[in-house]
C-alpha cells in the first residue's frame, strides 16, 4: 500500500477531527436508531435491551444527534471562513466539492475502464464518488436532522406546523436513515476502503497523509497540477508516525467492523 517514497498532506487536522466526529456520531446514531426501526426482529430487540431499552437508546440517539449538528455547524463555519477569506475555488474548480461537467465525463470514463474499454480517468483532488459521498451526508443531515428535530420537540413544532408533518417526519427520518446507513456501510466503505487497492482500509482520513505512489495513481491530475504550480513541496511531509498508523487501524477497522455487522443484519432482515 505505501511505498518508500515521500508523503503529502491530503487532509488537514480540521478535516480529520470533523470526520472523526462523523464516524463516532454516525455509528452512534445507527446503533441507537436501528433497534427502533427493526423492533420486530430478534436482533433489534436484543440490541435495544443491551442499550438499556428504547428510552435510554433515545437519549443516546439525541446525544449523537447533537454531535452531528455540532460538526455540521463547524463545517458550515469552515466553508464560510473560506468564502470570507476569498479563498478561490470553493464553488468551482478542482478543489471544489460542487459537481461539475468533468465529473460526468470521469464517471463515463470510469465505467469504460471497468469494462476494459479505456484507461483510468485522471482524477483531480475529488473523484465524483467522493463528491457524492459528501453531498449524500450533506443532504442526509439536512433531511434526517430536520425530521429528527421535529420528532424531538413535537409539541413545540406543533405551534406552527400541522400534526400531519410528524407522520411525514417518521417516514422520512426512518427511510432516509436506512438509505444513509446502507450507503455508508456498503458503498462508502467499498469506494474508500474495501476495494482491493485500499483493502482493508485507507488510513488517510486519520493520518491525513498520502504517499507519492498512491497520490500519483489516484489523483494524477491534482499531482501534476500542484507540481506544475510548484505547490507540491509545500504539502510534503514525513510518513505517519507509528502511533498514528496504529490508531488509524484500531479505530478504522473497528468502525468498519461495526458498520459491516449492522448492514449485514439489515440485509439479512430485508431478505428474510
Amino acid at each position, binding site marked *: 500500500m505505501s511505498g518508500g517514497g515521500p508523503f503529502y498532506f491530503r487532509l488537514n487536522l480540521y478535516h480529520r477531527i470533523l470526520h472523526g466526529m462523523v464516524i463516532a456520531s454516525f455509528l452512534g446514531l445507527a446503533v441507537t436508531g436501528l*433497534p*427502533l*426501526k427493526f*423492533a*420486530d426482529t430478534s436482533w*433489534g*430487540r436484543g440490541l*435495544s*435491551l443491551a442499550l438499556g*431499552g*428504547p*428510552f435510554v437508546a433515545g437519549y443516546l440517539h439525541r446525544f449523537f444527534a447533537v454531535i452531528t449538528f455540532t460538526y455540521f455547524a463547524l463545517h458550515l463555519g469552515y466553508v464560510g471562513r473560506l468564502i470570507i477569506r476569498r479563498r478561490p475555488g470553493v464553488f468551482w474548480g478542482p478543489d471544489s466539492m460542487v459537481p461539475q461537467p468533468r465529473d460526468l465525463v470521469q464517471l463515463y*470514463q*470510469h*465505467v469504460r*475502464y*471497468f*469494462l*476494459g474499454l*479505456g*484507461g*483510468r*480517468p*485522471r482524477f483531480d483532488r475529488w473523484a465524483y*464518488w467522493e463528491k457524492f459521498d459528501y453531498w449524500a451526508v450533506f443532504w442526509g443531515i439536512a433531511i434526517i436532522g430536520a425530521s429528527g428535530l421535529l*420528532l424531538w420537540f*413535537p*409539541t*413545540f413544532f*406543533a*405551534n406552527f*406546523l*400541522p*400534526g*400531519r408533518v*410528524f*407522520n*411525514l417526519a*417518521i*417516514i*422520512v427520518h426512518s*427511510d*432516509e436513515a*436506512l*438509505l444513509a446507513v*446502507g*450507503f455508508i456501510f*456498503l*458503498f462508502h466503505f*467499498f*469506494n474508500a476502503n474495501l*476495494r*482491493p*487497492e485500499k483493502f482493508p482500509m485507507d488510513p488517510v482520513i486519520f493520518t491525513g497523509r498520502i504517499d507519492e505512489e498512491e497520490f500519483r*495513481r489516484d489523483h*494524477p491530475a491534482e499531482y501534476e497540477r500542484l507540481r506544475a504550480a510548484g505547490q507540491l513541496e509545500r504539502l510534503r511531509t514525513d510518513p505517519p508516525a507509528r502511533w498514528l498508523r496504529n490508531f488509524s487501524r484500531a479505530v478504522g477497522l473497528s468502525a468498519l467492523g461495526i458498520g459491516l455487522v449492522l448492514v449485514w443484519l439489515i440485509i439479512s432482515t430485508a431478505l428474510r
Partner: protein
Amino acid sequence: MLLVVGAAWAADLPKAEDCLGCHADRDLKRGAPAPGRPASLFVDPAGLKASAHGTLECVACHRTATAPHDEKLPPVSCAGCHDKARAVLAAGIHGAGKARGGRPAVACTSCHGTHQVARATTLTIETCTTCHGPQVLAYKGSIHGRSRQAGDTEAATCRSCHGPAHAAVARSNPESPVYHLNLPRTCAQCHADGELAKRHQIRVGNVYQLYMDSIHGRAVTRSGLLVSANCSDCHGSHEIKERTDPASRVFRANIPQTCGTCHAGILKVYAESVHRKPASGSAGPAAVCTDCHSAHQIRRVEAAPWQLDVIRECGGCHGAELRTYRETFHGKVTGLGFTRIAKCADCHGSHDILPASNPRSTVSPGRLVETCRQCHAKATPAFAQFHPHPDPADRARFPLLHVATVFMTALLVGTFGFFGLHTLLWLPRSMIDLLRRRRGGEGGGEAP
C-alpha cells in the same frame, strides 16, 4: 363371623320362618304409627332373600326379638356390624344426625333401604334424589349427566365431586372436595388428565395449569380468597354445560353476564361500550370479556406482560390498526417490551371503549387533545392531527404519506441500484489491475 354367631344363637332364637309367619302378611300394620316410620310391618320375603342381608337371620339385626312378640322392637343399630361405616359417617354431613330444611335426618336406611338392603355398588343417583332433588335434576341436564346417560361411565357423577357418600361433608367444610378453595383440584382430577380428555374428545387444553397461574387461581390457591372465582363460579356446578350450548354460563353471549356476577361495575361500563354491540354479520357482542382477558389465563391488568400482550388481542380483530400502530414510535416501543408509552387502551379506553364518532369517545375530535395530553402535556389541536395509525399504502386517505413513501423508496432503489452496479463493475476490474501490478510492476492502465 356373623354367620357363626347367628348359628350359635340359632338353638334358642327365632328363625326367619318364625318371624315371617306374621310379617309376610301384607296387611300387618303398626298400632300407633310413629312419625317418619312406615306404618306397615310387612316384610317382603323375596326381597329380603335377594338383598345383601339375604343370608342373615332376622335376629342378626333385631337382636331382642322373640317370636311372637307384643312390644315394639328397639331400633336396629347397623353399627353393630358396620362399625367402620359408622365412624366415617359420623364425621360427615350425612351422619351428623341433624335434620336440615325440614327433611328428616339421614339414617342408613335412607339410602340403603331396610329389609331389601342394597349394596353400595347398586345404589344409583336416584338414591340421592330423595333429598337432593333439584341438584340431581340440574345434573341430569348437564354435560356430565347427559354423558352418563349416553353410557359414558367416566363422566362425573355425585361422588366424583362430593366424595364417597359416608364421608361426604358440607361444601362449607374446608375438608370438602367442593369447598371453594378445593374445587379446582377436584375438577382437575379429570380436566387436567390429558389421556382422559383425549379419550372423550374434550378440547380442554391445559386449562388447569393456566387457571392456577391466573389471577383467579392464585387468589384461590395462594391467598385462600373465598370471593375469587373458581371453576364453578364461571361454569356452574350441577348444571354445567358445554360452552357451545346457548344455556351455558360460558356460552359466548352469556360471558359478560357471568363475569358480571362478580365484576358488576365493569359490566355496567361495558354494557355501554361499542364492544357490547354486535359486530357486523354476527349475533353476539363484538367482543366479550374473554376475547381480551382470555378465559383461564386472566392476569393482573397493572402488570407489563398483560398490558403488552393485550395489544395483540386487540389486533386479533383490528388487524390493520395494529399493523399501522406498529409502524409508529408508540407501537415500536411497546413491541420492544416497554409500557411507558401509548397502548391501545391508553387512547381508546378499555371497557368504556366507544367509536370516534361518539362525542363521549376519548378519540372523538372534541376529546382528542385531552387524550394526547395524558402524555404530551403541551399538546394542541394541531399536535393532535398526528395520525397514530397512518397507512402510507392507502393513497386515498394519506396522499402525502403515500407520495413520501414512493419517493423515499425510489431514492433508495435508485441509489442502491446505481452504486450496486458501479461496485459490481469496479470490483473485478480493480482485482485484475491489482494482480497485473503485482506480476509486472506498474501495469495499472493509467491514462496517458
